């Protein structure tokens, strides 16, 4: 599964996306858990959300093949 990174998450991932190992069906909560294990610095953020197909996703959402997954650190536009 390709996971897009923005803002500070690009620094944490050392790139604008990573490939996450995807053996069985994953929920958003699963993705967060996996990423936090792999990139502990995520836990130091004030907060972060996961977007699936350009929409903020709840923890229990099941991610499907071809979904676009993105990590959204605290936004600061305007």
């Amino acid at each position, binding site marked *: 599964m390709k996971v*897009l990174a*923005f*803002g*500070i998450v690009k*620094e944490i991932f050392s790139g604008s996306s990573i490939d996450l190992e995807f053996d069985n069906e994953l929920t958003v909560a699963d993705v967060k858990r996996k990423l936090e294990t792999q990139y502990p610095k995520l836990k*130091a*953020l*004030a907060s972060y959300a996961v*977007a699936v197909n*350009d*929409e*903020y996703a709840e923890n229990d959402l099941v991610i499907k093949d071809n979904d676009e997954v*993105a990590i*959204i*650190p*605290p*936004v*600061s*536009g*305007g």
Partner: protein
Amino acid sequence: MNTDIQILDMPLDINACINWVMAPECGGIDVFIGTVRNHTKGKSVLRLEFEAYERMALKEMDKIAKEMLQCWPLHKIAMHHRVGILGVGEVPVVIAVSAAHRDAAFDACRYAIDTLKETVPIWKKEIFEDGEVWVAAHP
């Protein structure tokens, strides 16, 4: 179409936003213009760098505009956000709202910028003389 929502990597055209929302059936326009401040928390800012998750940001801005049109009797909404590197005094965001009556324009414009700062996936990095920081990233 009564909303004009854009993410641009060139200087925003404040006039174009105002002219676009202006209409004979309107009595008032409220415009918010964000500008890059030369300091933050006592430190000198050299420049800002804005990054957007563009497709999602446009969607979220569009949601805000739809909510505004539902909550207030508005005529038109222009919401332009810039990305890329901005110097002090440059304009990252312009929101212009026209309505028959000014209260709706004021309330909706303020709602727009408040909500944009909370929900729209755009990030800014402040660049100082001695380093840089992604705003709001850490507690």
